[in-house]
């Protein structure tokens, strides 16, 4: 694969090759799409045990201001989430919006635990969007808040029901973290920043590691028989079963958080005020509904419906919607998809047809996630 030579690499590139990964171009990086285990087994292994994912291609950055209120207020001008009330050591999912209230990118924001880090927020953004995101964020910041792009750290995800017990062997304090908490930890003496979150619907962590220590951390985790390296192929089927959006496919610069059915990222104060880009339009949609809505789709039979497949109402010819992500769900043992349909056809159980190679496959609007999420909630 000649073009791989021109691509950017992550600090784990040599390890991927050592592990026998099939490398493909993704968002300008040479990334492992699968290892010798194969997509299906990698997917199932993650749901049964724990999978290690290199997500170092994603963008890591800090917003740095004089105090939390100032930094949070600066970020709030770009996103519809309540950042002001994000507590120390907590993480939140949000979206960058354009003036139409449509989604420029989706991202994770964490507020450090330590008092001396007050005024700092850590951002993790999509690889394919990061340059544009940084440009937009930097342009919107007041003088006393700076964007610091992190170029010297890897990002490793450890996901699955056994992630916590494996992680605890190297970083005992990780066990005390609840879902959507973030904190600095020592991992076998290496300083890392861990968040208890991910993109599979399973319990697990995303770990920001100094680039030079990334291979040591990955190898320490992979040495455990409960952990296997997992490629982007299974990452996609895992997130699809978990009902999680893939930016650029399920949400993009033509969809709002309301159409994308991710209004959980908008907290009460922001939803009432509408003080964010495209706020007027988004508030109107919240009150009156939208023409189209992202829904989950389950198909009869085994044939998968993939991105781009047309959707119609049985007995009619008119195309009323489109699949934005679809494939075979290994845990479900059946095809799963998500896509946009008119809101009046978005009720759970609505019967639809998806056109695959000229054939109409029976499908129903279905509850998401398709596979129950198993995040770790701390006992109160």
């Amino acid at each position: 694969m000649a073009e791989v030579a021109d691509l950017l690499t992550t600090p784990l590139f040599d390890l991927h090759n050592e592990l026998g990964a099939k490398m493909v171009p993704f968002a300008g990086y040479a990334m492992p799409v699968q290892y010798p285990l194969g997509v299906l087994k990698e997917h199932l292994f993650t749901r049964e045990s724990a999978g290690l994912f290199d997500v170092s291609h994603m963008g890591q950055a800090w917003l740095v201001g004089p105090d939390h209120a100032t930094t949070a207020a600066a970020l709030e001008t770009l996103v519809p989430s309540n950042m002001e009330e994000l507590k120390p050591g907590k993480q939140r999912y949000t979206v960058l919006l354009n003036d139409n209230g449509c989604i420029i990118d989706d991202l994770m924001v964490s507020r450090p635990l330590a008092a001396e880090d007050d005024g700092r927020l850590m951002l993790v953004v999509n690889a394919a969007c990061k340059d544009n995101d940084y440009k937009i964020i930097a342009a919107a910041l007041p003088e006393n808040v700076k964007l610091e792009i992190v170029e010297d750290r890897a990002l490793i995800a450890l996901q699955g029901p056994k992630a916590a017990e494996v992680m605890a062997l190297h970083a005992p304090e990780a066990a005390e973290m609840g879902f959507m908490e973030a904190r600095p930890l020592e991992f076998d003496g290496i300083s890392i920043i861990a968040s208890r979150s991910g993109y599979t619907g399973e319990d697990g962590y995303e770990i920001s590691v100094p680039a030079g220590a990334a291979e040591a951390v990955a190898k320490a985790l992979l040495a455990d028989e409960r952990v296997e390296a997992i490629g982007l192929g299974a990452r996609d089927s895992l997130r699809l079963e978990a009902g999680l959006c893939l930016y650029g496919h399920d949400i993009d610069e033509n969809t709002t958080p309301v159409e994308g059915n991710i209004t959980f990222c908008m907290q009460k104060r922001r939803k009432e005020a509408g003080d964010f880009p495209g706020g007027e339009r988004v508030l109107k949609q919240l009150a009156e509904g939208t023409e189209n809505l992202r829904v989950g789709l389950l198909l009869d039979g085994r044939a998968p419906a993939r991105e781009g497949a047309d959707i119609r109402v049985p007995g009619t010819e008119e195309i009323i919607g489109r699949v934005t992500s679809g494939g075979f769900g290994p845990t479900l043992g059946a095809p799963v998809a998500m896509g946009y349909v008119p809101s009046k056809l978005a009720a759970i159980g609505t019967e639809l047809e998806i056109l695959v190679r000229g054939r109409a496959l029976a499908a129903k609007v279905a509850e998401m996630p398709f596979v129950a999420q198993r995040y770790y909630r701390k006992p109160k």
Partner: protein
Amino acid sequence: MSTYFTKDHEWLKVEGDVATVGITDFAQNQLGDVVYVELPENGKSVSQDDEVAVVESVKAASEVYAPVDGEIVEGNELLVDEPAKVNEAPEGAAWFFKIKLSNAAQLKDLMSEADYKAFVATL
């Protein structure tokens, strides 16, 4: 019985005027775990390079082409219930369809096993 191969990574075993067609071990390895197979209808007339069957992995769908002109006489129903057989026995039990040749002269332009191995080595 003669065996032929195509650049689309299909094999044909010809007995009399009927060819049994499947995908090669190289092809199944490239595809990864097969989760769905769609077969052509019996009695369908097809031309060389027509898309006649579909094989899907978790990641993607790929076409299986008619390697020669002819009429589909049988599809391998085993693959409908057990698509994973394509990974286990691609050049044996997991054949896709049988085609009755209408232009046997096309066979001479296909590859021998040795030619196919040399072709795969260049990929």
